Every structure is written in structure tokens, then in C-alpha cells.
């Protein structure tokens, strides 16, 4: 079995199994937990509604924090949007998703995918540079750096595979799939789970603040 067969066979399968089982495990494990009832009188009759609204309103920082957080907010948006285009826009990824789900849609030209991949990688580098140069702001743990690594590797190997940089194409493709497998397998257990948690954490914070009459 070649490295490519190994990567797109048992490795990616195991990674997807870990990811799906892990996501459901963590979501259920947290969401089924109950919180103690808050017996205080709510100061805002529409607290719950305002709390849910927070999920969207916190998509951009409040004006008080804008100056301090503009750089990483913009970079994070650039990274997420460019990565989204790469993940769902280029044909090899659509083919992979179609193999899993049966769903398919028209793909983008390779040039667009490569441009977005480079933008995503550049923004990711910009974000890690800020983290490295401002340790007092971030108080980073190894989990932060590892999460960055597992996100950066699929981008690096994907761009290398497309450009045929370094080893032979099928080796680079295998490395790209292995990098994606690492991403999938690590997804439920690190900070990448923010893809799900951000909805619940924002809503929970919003509901709690609204109940106490905090302007949100």
C-alpha cells in the first residue's frame, strides 16, 4: 500500500471517525449538563432574546475594543473566509466531500483557489506573529500553537501539492491528506471546537448579561 493509499484509506477514515464521534461526544457531554436555576428577578424582560442576539452582535468587537482588537479581528475574518473558499470551492475538495456525502456543486478555477490559499496562509502567519510578539496579551498555551500547526499544515501541503514543490505529486497529496486527517482527529479536543462552541458561549454570556441588565 502506497502512502497515498494509506492516507486516503484507513488514515482519513479513522480521522473522520474520531472527529464525528468526538464532536458528538463533546457537544452532548456539555449540552446535556444542566445549570442551577437563577432565582433572581430578571432585569430585562427580553433577556433571552437579547442573549441570542449576542451570537451575531459579537461577530464584530464593540467600539470600545475596536482599536485594540481590529488587527486580529480583520486577520481572523480574512483567514476564515479565504479558508472557506478553499475548503468548499476547489474541485478536489468538492470531490472528497462528494465521496463522503454525495453532495456536489460547481468548483472554482484553480487560480482562485490558489490565491485564496495563499491569502489564508498569509493571514495565519500574521496571526501567529502577533501571538508570538505579544505574549502578555495572549498567555498562550501549547494547545494554541498546536491548533495553529494543524490548521497551517493542510494549507502548506495543499499549496505545495498544487505547485508540485518538493516531492512527487502523489507524495505531496498524501501528506496533504495526512495533514487534513490530523486536523480532523484533533478538531474535537482542542480549540478548534470553537467552530461549535462560539454559538453556545456567546448565547450563554448574552443571556447571563441581559438578565443582569448589562447593555449588550
Amino acid at each position, binding site marked *: 500500500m502506497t502512502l*497515498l493509499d494509506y492516507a486516503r484509506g484507513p488514515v482519513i477514515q479513522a480521522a473522520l471517525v474520531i472527529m464525528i464521534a468526538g464532536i458528538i461526544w463533546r457537544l452532548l457531554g456539555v449540552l446535556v449538563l444542566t445549570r442551577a436555576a437563577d432565582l433572581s428577578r430578571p432585569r430585562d424582560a427580553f433577556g433571552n432574546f437579547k442573549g441570542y442576539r449576542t451570537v451575531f452582535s459579537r461577530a464584530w468587537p464593540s467600539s470600545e475594543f475596536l482599536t485594540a482588537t481590529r488587527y486580529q479581528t480583520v486577520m481572523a475574518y480574512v483567514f476564515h473566509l479565504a479558508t472557506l473558499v478553499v475548503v468548499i470551492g476547489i*474541485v478536489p475538495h468538492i470531490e472528497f466531500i462528494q*465521496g463522503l456525502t454525495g453532495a456536489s456543486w460547481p468548483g472554482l478555477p484553480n487560480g482562485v483557489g490558489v490565491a485564496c490559499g495563499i491569502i489564508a496562509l498569509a493571514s495565519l502567519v500574521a496571526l501567529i506573529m502577533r501571538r508570538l510578539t505579544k505574549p502578555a496579551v495572549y498567555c498562550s498555551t501549547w494547545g494554541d500553537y498546536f491548533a495553529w500547526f494543524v490548521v497551517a499544515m493542510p494549507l502548506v501541503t495543499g499549496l505545495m501539492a498544487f505547485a508540485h514543490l518538493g516531492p512527487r505529486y502523489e507524495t505531496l497529496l498524501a501528506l496533504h491528506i495526512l495533514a487534513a486527517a490530523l486536523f480532523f482527529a484533533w478538531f474535537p479536543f482542542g480549540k478548534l471546537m470553537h467552530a461549535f462552541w462560539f454559538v453556545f458561549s456567546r448565547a450563554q454570556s448574552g443571556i447571563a448579561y441581559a438578565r443582569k441588565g448589562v447593555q449588550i
Partner: protein
Amino acid sequence: MSKEISLGGFLRSQGISRRAFLGFCSTLASAMTIPSGMIEVMAKTLEQTRRPAVIWLSFQECTGCTESLLRSHAPSIESLIFDFISLDYHHTLQAASGSAAERAREETMHRHAGEYLVLVDGSVPKIRHYSTIAGVSNLDMLVETAAGAAAILAVGTCSAYGGLPKANPNPTQALSIGEIIKDKPIVNIPGCPPIPLAITGVIAYYLTMGSLPPLDHLGRPLAFFGENIHDRCYRRPFYDRGLFAESFDDEGARKGWCLYKLGCKAPETYNACAHVKWNQGTSFPIQSGHGCIGCSEPDFWDRGGIYTSTPQGRFDSELSLTLAASLGVVVGAGAAVLARRKKHRVEQELADEASAPESQTST
């Protein structure tokens, strides 16, 4: 078997002009990345070359490799070179049969010990009685014949890597030549069938240079298997522009767009199909409208379906992912139940601790 005639004399006797022969040498030198300054030397050496003795062994095969070389549209210099070699033993082509045929092989082995080339097509069954020739198993015949060979050319994917006979579940326990013979130089010329120029090219290189050509990590001559078909494919611009045939009869297929989505294995297949082509450069599978099936790669029969595209996973996604989701539900529900129990236990302990001082106070 004459050893007097030279290749130059033989080609002239077949009506091949020196200009045409030099043209062939230029093509071959170009294909095999031999420096242009060597063309004249190559032509001179080839012209003066005496007939090399060759034993062609056919084991678990379909004869497609031989047909590929022989059934050209018109006689080519490649096929004439093939005619030129002293093919002392070949099941399909030799006139002799039975013990006379086997005697020819043994005579060649004896007379040209250490000098003859062995060309093999077909894989070798490890279970000896599954394939025999004149009562001799393929395995024993290969080992016996290879012992005195100067070099071995494994022609076709079956002999190079096991091919179709080795496909899962491999009922004959088929082996490639390289898995059996370890002490002789082996050149793999895979393909189902291989490109004729790759076969004669390696023979011509050997006759000219006196050595085997540079090989890749799978034992294939780099000159013919150094680049993947995707990079050389004339449909590559459509791939880059995101234009694909979605089925074999849609507009994309009619317009000649990329066949990547239809399972074309060109991105992971190394062969000269896209630039050398077949039938004197007329066409190759992708040009005729079907994706590459990756026939020059090891185990290509077992690397997913012919119509499964390169990036698609090779596993049963529906079953495994459903099981994964079920596992997640069970583990997640279990974790939640345990956490709630712990929470209630802690609440109870705190309540007990809170009530204990009151009871002590009251007494």
C-alpha cells in the same frame, strides 16, 4: 540464429533509409534524455550491433504486451528492432512447440550464458501448479532462466508489479519478477500494455550504452516514466480553469474538457502516454475520451474504482461515519450522565455539610 547480421544491415534490408534511422535515433535519444551529441554515436553503435539473444517468458498474462509491440498500424523501426533481436523463445511467436521449444530456451541459456536478456510478461504464481509450461512451474522456469541472464526486462504491469493476477484476493498468490529475482538487474516497463517505444527504447539503450537506463524508485526507466500524465496532458488547461466533464456524454465530454471528475488517474500515474502516445503518436486513452486508469502503477486494480476520482476517500464512508456518530452519542450521553451524577453528589455533600453544623448547634 545468426550472429553475423548487424542492426544497420538488417534495417537496410527492410528498406529503412539511413535518414529514417537517424530520425529514429534522435527520437529515442530525446525520449531517453540522452545528450544530442550522442545521437551519432548511438546510431553508429546500433548500426554495428550484433543480434542480442533474448528469451521471452510469458507467465500469467493476456499476451496484450506482445500484441502491443507487434500489432502496430504500420511496420515501425521499433517493431523492426524487435524483429532484429534473436528472440529464441516466445510462446506466441515461435514456430517450434513442445520439447523442441524448450530445447531452444535451454540452448540459448547455455550458449549465451551471462549475456542474454530475459523479457518477462505476466506475473508468477507462488502456488506452483497454477501455471506450468511443459510441466515446469513458472516460478522454477523464471529462477532457472534468470540465473544466466545479463538483465531482466519485466514487460507489462503483471510482471513488473503483479498486475491483474495479483489483484485482491490474489488467488494464485501472484508475485512480480522483482519479488522473486533479487540478484539481477531488473527494469520494470509497466503498462497494460506498455508503450512499444518504452520496450524497444530500453533495449536500444542497453545495446547502445551497454548498461540499463536510469530508473525511478519503482524500477521504471525515468525517460518514459519520469513525469505524470496529468502534467503532460493536453486537457490540463481545462483542469486549471475548472472545466470538467461530469459524464461521458455531457457537453464537457463533447468539448474535450478534463476527465478528472470521471476518475482519471493521470495525476497519480507516471507514463509517457500523453506525449509518446500510441499507434505512431495517433492518440492515447484520455484523447479518446476515457480517463487514465493508472495501469502503469503498482496494484492499480485495488486502488479504488476506475471511476473514483483521485481525491476521494477509499473506504465505506456511510457505514463507518454512522458508527462513529453512534459511538459519539453513546460516549457523550455516558459522559453527561456521569457528570450529572457527580454534580448531584457534590450538591448532596454540600447540603449535608451545611445541615451538619445546624444539627450540632441544636443539640
